[in-house]
C-alpha cells in the first residue's frame, strides 16, 4: 500500500506550542517572538508559548485546543524528543488525535543550551519550529506495534546492585540470568571490612545475599562470564555470553577446596587482594565465594605452561574427577526481555598523581589496600601494619579527594570518600588507640542518614581534621623529627599556614571512576555514557535507572559514584521497572517500519541485501520484494537505497523529510517558486 501522498491536503490545522522551560529556553530564545511568528505560518491554526509545556497544565492546553479548535496536527518546540516526545504524544492521544500526528522541535538541547547569542538562537528556534510545522502536515496516523515481553531478565554485574536487582526479580517469580565476569559475585563490597556509618561488617550483611542469589531457583548464575553480543530490542533481546573455562567441572565439584590446598604454587592476587596478598593458582577469590567452584588461572598454572603438575587433579576426591584441563570456553545464547546493567566502578589510579608517592614510597596505601588490611580475613589478619607487614603505625594521614574534585583528573565529587575516610580514621583509633590520625580534606561531605553524626563521633574520637588539599607526600626530612617518616605537606586553610606533618602511614582515598571498558559496554548495549564514562540515565532526577534505550536499565555505581545504600536502592528500583514491564506483558513499539509498494517494485533486488536484519524477501514468482514487518527495525537504509523510490519508511517518508528540509531553511530559501519535491 502506498501511504505516501504526493499532494497532501495543505489545509491541516496545526497547533504550535513554544515552551519556556522555566528560563532554560526563554532566557536565550525570544519565545514570544517565535510564537507570534509561528502563528503566521501557513496551516497554523494557533501558536502559543507557555512556561512548562510538559506540566499537566501545558498538556491540558494541547488537549483543549485539539478539542476546541479542531487541531489536526500538533507541534511542540521544547526539549529533546528523547525527553518528552512520549509525554506530548500521550497528550495528543488524550485529546483525541492520533499520537503520530505530532512533531517535536528541540530548541533546548540543540539551541538555547549551546549558545548565549539570543538573535541566532531565536532564528534557529524559528527554523526548527518551522521544519516541524512543514513536516507535520505530511504526518500520517499510525498504530503502535505491540511486542511481547520475554519475562526473563539479564543482570550484568554481580556487585551489591546487581545481586539486589536479581534477587528482587527472582523473589517476584521471574527468571534472571546474572552474569559476572569474576569467579565470584560480590563486587567491591566483598572486599570491604566494615561499612559506614553503622560499621556493620560488610561480609556479614553481604554473604547471606550472595548465598540467596547462588541458590535461588529463579537465578541462573553465570560467573567467570562476559556478554559478547547483544541483538534485538525491548521484549526480545538475544544475548551471547562467553562462559570462560574454569577447568573445573561444575557438575561434579563439591567445592571442598582440597585442590586449592594441594596446589603447590602461589601468585600475588592483584584483583581481590589488590596486590596485598597471595592466592593459589587454582583459587577462589575469597572463602565465602559464590559459587563455591574454584577457577584455575591458566596463565600461571604449571601444568598449562610446562605440561607437568596436575596435583589438583590427583587430589580431587570426586568421582568422576572434577578437574578438567580440556574444558573450553562456552558460548551461551540466552533470550531475555529486559537487561539491567550493574557493572560498578573502579578506583582512580593514584600513581597518576606522583607527588603523593604511591608506588614510590612504600607506606603510601590506597583505600582498597587498607580495606583488605583491616579485614580480619585479609592478608594481615586485620592488623594495621606498614608495608614491612610488622610495624604498627603510630601516626596515619588520610588524604581525601585523590583525583576527585580536581581539574586535572575528575571534576566530580566521588561522594563516598569522605565517609570511608572517616571510617578509616575510626578503624585506626579502634585498633591502635594511641595513634594520631590526620584527615586532610577539601570540604567534609557527609550528606546521608546518620553520616554527619558519624563525623561528629570522629571529632570526639580525637581525629585531627585539616582542611586543605595536600600538596605532596615526601620522604625528604628537614628536621630530625621528620627523619624516616612520610611528610605530608598541606596548607591548613583554617589556620592559614603551611604544615608539614610527619607520619608513618599515608592512606589515599581515590576517586570512584567508571569501569575502564564502560564505553565499550555502553556501545555493546547500545545506550549512552557520559564524558566520565558513567552510564547515562534517562532523566537525572525523574528516571535515574532507565536509559534512553528501551529495555535497558542501570543500577549502582556504574551510573555515578554511590555508596551501598544508594546502590541497593537503584538495584531494587531497576528490578521494579522491569517487573512492571513483565507484568504488562507487551510493550508498544514505534511503528517506524519500511514497506514496499509492490505494484511499483521493479524487482531490481537492490534493497534485498541492504537490510542488516534480512527483513526483505524476494518473491521469485511475482518478481517483487517485500518487507517482513516483524523483522524490520526501521533503520530506513532500504528506503534510501531503492532506485524507484517506492519503499516507504513510516514516519520518515521522503515527503516528510524533504518538507522538513524546506522548512528548516525558511529564511535562506531562494526567492523563486517552490521547486517540486
Amino acid at each position, binding site marked *: 500500500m502506498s501511504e505516501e501522498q504526493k499532494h497532501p491536503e495543505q489545509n491541516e490545522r496545526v497547533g504550535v506550542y513554544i515552551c519556556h522551560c522555566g528560563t532554560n529556553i526563554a532566557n536565550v530564545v525570544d519565545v514570544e517572538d517565535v510564537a507570534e511568528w509561528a502563528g503566521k505560518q501557513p496551516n497554523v491554526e494557533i501558536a502559543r508559548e507557555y512556561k512548562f509545556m510538559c506540566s499537566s497544565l501545558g498538556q491540558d492546553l494541547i488537549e483543549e485546543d485539539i478539542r476546541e479548535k479542531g487541531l489536526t496536527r500538533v507541534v511542540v518546540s521544547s526539549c529533546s524528543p528523547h525527553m518528552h516526545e512520549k509525554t506530548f504524544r500521550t497528550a495528543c492521544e488524550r485529546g483525541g488525535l492520533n499520537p503520530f500526528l505530532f512533531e517535536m522541535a528541540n530548541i533546548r538541547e540543540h539551541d538555547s543550551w549551546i549558545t548565549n547569542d539570543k538573535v541566532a538562537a531565536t532564528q534557529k528556534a524559528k527554523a526548527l519550529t518551522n521544519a516541524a510545522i512543514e513536516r507535520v502536515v505530511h504526518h500520517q496516523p499510525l498504530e503502535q506495534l505491540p511486542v511481547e515481553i520475554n519475562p526473563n531478565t539479564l543482570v550484568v554485574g554481580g556487585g551489591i546492585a546487581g545481586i539486589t536487582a536479581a534477587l528482587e526479580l527472582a523473589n517476584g517469580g521471574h527468571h534472571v540470568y546474572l552474569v559476572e565476569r569474576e569467579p565470584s559475585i560480590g563486587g567491591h563490597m566483598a572486599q570491604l571490612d566494615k561499612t559506614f556509618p553503622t560499621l556493620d561488617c560488610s561480609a556479614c550483611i553481604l554473604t547471606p545475599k550472595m548465598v540467596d542469589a547462588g541458590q535461588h531457583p529463579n537465578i541462573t548464575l553465570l560467573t567467570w562470564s562476559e556478554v559478547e553480543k547483544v541483538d534485538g530490542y525491548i521484549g526480545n533481546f538475544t544475548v551471547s555470553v562467553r562462559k570462560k573455562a574454569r577447568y573445573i567441572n561444575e557438575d561434579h565439584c563439591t567445592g571442598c577446596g582440597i585442590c586449592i590446598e594441594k596446589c603447590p604454587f602461589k601468585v600475588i592476587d592483584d584483583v581481590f587482594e589488590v596486590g596485598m596478598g597471595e592466592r593459589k593458582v587454582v583459587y577462589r577469590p575469597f572463602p565465602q565465594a559464590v559459587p563455591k567452584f574454584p577457577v584455575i588461572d591458566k596463565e600461571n598454572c604449571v601444568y598449562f605452561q610446562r605440561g607437568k603438575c596436575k596435583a589438583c587433579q590427583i587430589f580431587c576426591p570426586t568421582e568422576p574427577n572434577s578437574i578438567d584441563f580440556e574444558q573450553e570456553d562456552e558460548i551461551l545464547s540466552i533470550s531475555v526481555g529486559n537487561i539491567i546493567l550493574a557493572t560498578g566502578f573502579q578506583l582512580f589510579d593514584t600513581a*597518576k*598523581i*606522583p*607527588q603523593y608517592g604511591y608506588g*614510590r614510597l612504600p607506606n603510601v596505601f590506597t583505600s582498597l589496600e587498607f580495606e583488605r588490611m583491616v579485614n580480619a580475613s585479609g592478608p594481615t589478619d586485620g592488623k594495621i601494619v606498614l608495608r614491612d607487614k610488622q610495624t604498627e603505625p603510630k601516626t596515619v594521614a588520610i588524604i581525601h579527594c585523590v583525583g576527585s574534585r580536581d581539574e*586535572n583528573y575528575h571534576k566530580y565529587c566521588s561522594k563516598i570518600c569522605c565517609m570511608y575516610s572517616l571510617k578509616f580514621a575510626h578503624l585506626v583509633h579502634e585498633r591502635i588507640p594511641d595513634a594520631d590520625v590526620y584527615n586532610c580534606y577539601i570540604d567534609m561531605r557527609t550528606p546521608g542518614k546518620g553520616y554527619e553524626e558519624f563525623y561528629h563521633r570522629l571529632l570526639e574520637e580525637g581525629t585531627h581534621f585539616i582542611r586543605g588539599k595536600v600538596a605532596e607526600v*615526601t*620522604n*625528604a*626530612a*628537614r628536621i630530625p623529627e621528620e*627523619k624516616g617518616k612520610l611528610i605530608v605537606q598541606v596548607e591548613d586553610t583554617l589556620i592559614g599556614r603551611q604544615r608539614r606533618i610527619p607520619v608513618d602511614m599515608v592512606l589515599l582515598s581515590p576517586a570512584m571512576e567508571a569501569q575502564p571498558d564502560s564505553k565499550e559496554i555502553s556501545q555493546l548495549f547500545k545506550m549512552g555514557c557520559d564524558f566520565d564514562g558513567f552510564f547515562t540515565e534517562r532523566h537525572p532526577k525523574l528516571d535515574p535507572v532507565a536509559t534512553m534505550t528501551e529495555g535497558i536499565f542501570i543500577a549502582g555505581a556504574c551510573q555515578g559514584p554511590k555508596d551501598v545504600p544508594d546502590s541497593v536502592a537503584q538495584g531494587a528500583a531497576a528490578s521494579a521497572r522491569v517487573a512492571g514491564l513483565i507484568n504488562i506483558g507487551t510493550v508498544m513499539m514505534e511503528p517506524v517500519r519500511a514497506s514496499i509498494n509492490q505494484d511499483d517494485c521493479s524487482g531490481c533486488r537492490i534493497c534485498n541485501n541492504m537490510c542488516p536484519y534480512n527483513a526483505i524477501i524476494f518473491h521469485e514468482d511475482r518478481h517483487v520484494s517485500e518487507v517482513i514487518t516483524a523483522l524490520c527495525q526501521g533503520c530506513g537504509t532500504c528506503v534510501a537505497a531503492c532506485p524507484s523510490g517506492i519503499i516507504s519508511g513510516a514516519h520518515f517518508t521522503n515527503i516528510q523529510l524533504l518538507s522538513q528540509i524546506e522548512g528548516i531553511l525558511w529564511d535562506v530559501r531562494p526567492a523563486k517558486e517552490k521547486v517540486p519535491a
Partner: protein
Amino acid sequence: MKKFAYFPGCSLEKLAQSYNNSSVETTRLLGVELQELEDWNCCGATTYFHVDQLLAYTLVARNLAMAEKEGLDLVAPCSACYKNAYFTNKYIKEDPDLAEHINYALEEDDLQFNGTINVHHVIEIFVNEIGVEKIKSKITNPLEGLRVAPYYGCQIVRPKHNGTDAENPHFFEELVSAMGADTVDYPERLRCCGASLIMTSRHAALNMVRTLLQSAVDCETNVIATACPLCQVNLECYQPQVNEEFGTNFNMPVLYFTQLLGLAMGLPPKKVGIGSELVSAAPIFDKYLKRTVR
C-alpha cells in the same frame, strides 16, 4: 652536524663560564653544533616581566627573531632564559595582537618574528636530540661510584609538561646513569632553589637552599648536578651564608651536568671548567676519577 641557535644568556658570560664551555664542548663531541647568536641581548631574567610585560616579551622576541632569521631553533642553557623564551614563543604564536605589537618594535631593528621556530633547554638537546643511548656509547670515563643528585629545579619541566611528566620526570636521572654515575633518588629535585627570593627575602631563600642541601646530604650525595646557572649559584655560593645563618656545616659540590658529562666523556677537567668552583670538587674526584684528575 645538527645545528641550533645558541643563546647563552648573561650568566654564562661570566659567572657560569664553566657551564658555557662544557655545554659547547660536550654537544660538539656528540655531533651537535651550538651556534651562538651574534648580537643577543638579555632575556629580562626573573624581574623584567614584572616591570613591563610587553617590553619584556619584545626583549626576548628579538633573540627569537634572530634565531628564526638563521632558520634555527633556539637553545638556552639557563632555565630562566629557557622559560622566558619558551613562553614568549608560545604566546606570540597564540596571540596575533601581541605578535603585532612586538613586530612593530622589532621593525626598528629590521627584524620580524613569525613564530616558525621552537625553543629548547640545552638538557633537552641531550635527552631528545642526541639521546641517552648515543651518550652512553661516548662515555670513556664512567663516573663509577659517584653519587650524583640530579637537581631539576622548578623551571625546566613546567613550561612544556604537565601531570605525571611534570611531577615525576625521569630524563635527568637517565642522563646521570648514562654517565655511569649512581643516581641519587633525590626527593627535593623539583623544588625551587629560591633564586628570585634571595634579594627580597634572604632568610626564606637561604632556608630553601638549606632544605635542598640537607636533603642531598641525607641521601649521601657526593655532588649535585644542575642545569641552570641560577640554581648553581644559589646552591653553591650561598653555602657559607646558610652555614652561618643556620649553624650548619655544608660543603657540597654543585656542578653543571655538562661538566660531569664532559669528564665522563674524557674531556680534560680544565676544558669543562673544573677548578673554578667555590666548593671544591677536588675531594670527590680524587676518590672517583683518579684517571682524569691528577
